[in-house]
């Protein structure tokens, strides 16, 4: 334990002083080159280490992953499109994709509706009440998915019939003399997946609430007053005046939650580990890579995920460029 702590302290000191030294040396080297070269090379001395880290940890591996997706399980020979064909024709994997689609359709929308609802209502409380409410809703954001799944055992837990039910849902069911239900096994209407989505929404609603709340507060008073003078009711004002003005923030929240949802892994891995038709691509990827040791399938799954995220990426870049132009 002492050794570990020492190594952590060493890593911090070494990492920081190492980085400082690196930049200092790079800077000195560049400055010794004389003015003409200095201006050209200095940006690379400053940005170089970060660009290198991004290249080594994201860009280079992404290229290799694409390459591996055309290779066999142990990455020894190329197999063309076989991995893609195998996965996209397996009804099992298509079921996984369907599950992901459900997550995508439900979680971002649910997060926004809940966050917006709390933001609008809490806005009417006194500042202190508003602060307390928001903290309560926001708090789960600090909790890991593993922690959240553990926490939700207090609600979803199941004991065999005849034993005391220690999960809230089953205890409530017991009051109505309905038998205990092993919730994670109920595939009807994807109920089990829905219950897992609830956990994710629970952690994310606060994020959406905070962003939407400040967007609502930033809408100009006059627009609302004008509508009110024209005789619009509150519902109309909300949907016709406020929502259009906070559309940009809604999109921001939607994209952020969407990306999180597309690669969701922890919740499913910790609760059902993909059983009972709850599997998602994030967990399937881990399973192929680690449990089955099939690097080909694992890489193919990630490439498919990348393709699915590409439209989001394009929106993101466009959004950024538009914002830059407005600076």
């Amino acid at each position, binding site marked *: 334990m002492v050794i570990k702590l020492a190594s952590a302290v060493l890593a911090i000191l070494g990492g*920081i002083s190492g980085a400082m030294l690196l930049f200092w040396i790079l800077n000195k080297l560049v400055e010794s080159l004389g003015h003409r070269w200095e201006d050209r090379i200095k940006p690379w001395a400053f940005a170089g280490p970060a660009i290198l880290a991004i290249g080594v940890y994201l860009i280079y591996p992404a290229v*290799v992953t694409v390459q591996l997706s055309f290779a066999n399980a142990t990455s020894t020979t190329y197999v063309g499109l076989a991995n893609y064909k195998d996965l996209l024709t397996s009804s099992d994997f298509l079921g996984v994709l369907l599950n992901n689609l459900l997550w995508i359709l439900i979680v971002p929308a649910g997060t926004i509706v809940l966050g917006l609802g709390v933001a609008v209502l809490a806005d009417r409380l006194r500042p202190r009440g508003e602060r307390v409410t928001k903290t309560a809703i926001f708090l789960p954001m600090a909790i*890991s998915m593993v922690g959240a799944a553990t926490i939700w055992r*207090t609600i979803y837990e199941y004991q065999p019939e005849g034993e005391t039910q220690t999960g809230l849902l089953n205890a409530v069911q017991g009051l109505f003399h309905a038998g205990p239900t092993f919730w994670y096994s109920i595939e009807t209407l994807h109920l089990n997946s829905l219950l897992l989505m609830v956990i994710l929404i629970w952690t994310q609603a606060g994020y959406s609430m905070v962003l939407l709340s400040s967007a609502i507060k930033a809408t100009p008073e006059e627009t609302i007053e004008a509508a009110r003078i024209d005789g619009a009711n509150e519902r109309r004002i909300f949907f016709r005046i406020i929502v259009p003005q906070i559309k940009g923030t809604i999109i921001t929240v939607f994209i952020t939650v969407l990306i999180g949802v597309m690669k969701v892994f922890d919740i499913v891995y910790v609760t059902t580990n993909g059983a009972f038709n709850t599997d998602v691509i994030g967990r399937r990827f881990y399973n192929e890579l680690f449990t089955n040791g099939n690097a080909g399938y694992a890489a193919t799954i*990630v490439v498919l995920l990348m393709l699915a995220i590409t439209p989001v990426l394009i929106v993101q870049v466009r959004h950024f460029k538009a914002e830059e132009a407005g600076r």
Partner: protein
Amino acid sequence: MTDIMDPPRAGGSRTKPSRRSLRAKSADGRGGGMVTGAATWPVRIVLTFACVVWLMPIAGLLINSFRTRDSQFNSGWWSVFGNPLDATQWTLNNYDRVLSSADANGANMGEAFINSLVVTVPATVIPILIAAFAAYAFTFMTWRGRNVIFVVIVGLLVVPNQVALVPLLKLYGQLGINQTFLAVWLTHLGFGMPLAVYIFRGYMSGLPGEIIESAKIDGASHFTTFWRLIVPMSVPALASFAIFQFLWVWNDLLVALLFLGRGENTVLTVALQGLQGQTGQGRELIPAAGFVTIIVPVLVFLSLQRFFIRGMTTGAVKG
């Protein structure tokens, strides 16, 4: 991760005060402009209910973590509200066993806690300097390729880290650093870099340009300007990123699972996940283990909440 941070430019989110008042209205939608705090009882009840529902699972976990094995299994966590003074149901034993290394079912969360700290602190601190230098170059220097590279970084914000894992696992295997802290530090350093550079650049480009100009006129080099001016002025952005990265690394399961595994270097999230399968002996320890896992991020979050929220909102409100 669109727009999580931007510099606090005009019209940010700190427009809390009384101009809100006109919009605070009764829930039925009639009633004119009332002052803030004009929430009607239905609104208060709905919000109180929402807060209770939101915090209830956490309360359940906390309560169970202090209950004996028997009371945990023979009655639901809510039953303590009926007999809170019955001392026989309460115990600190769960925490004792969870944290000790001697208990066979305890998953040794004490050591995992240390491991989590060992992983998280360097992985949070080290990227900051590297990213800040890069952000300076992207903001205050003109060079070929600057815009193209930055657009690539913006695009990478949405790219899932999974794209890197298969090759990294192979690479670390070849280098022989699988299952070491070094592997995890480096991985988080790389994965956190796009967000860090993006956040810092967004903040720096909102800093008053005149100050940098006058520093240049006074003959200060970029290096001096960076250290003496930009870093001190960017502290809010640096701190915001530090909080994000700290929560992200502490709460991460996938990277820890792949590159540290379940050996002696295992972190809290992985250890807690390992406990979930317990059905017999040790099941009573899950709530305490869960609480040990979440307590640090929750405290960090609660104490730095204002900072965190300000960081998140100032940019995004512009929409």
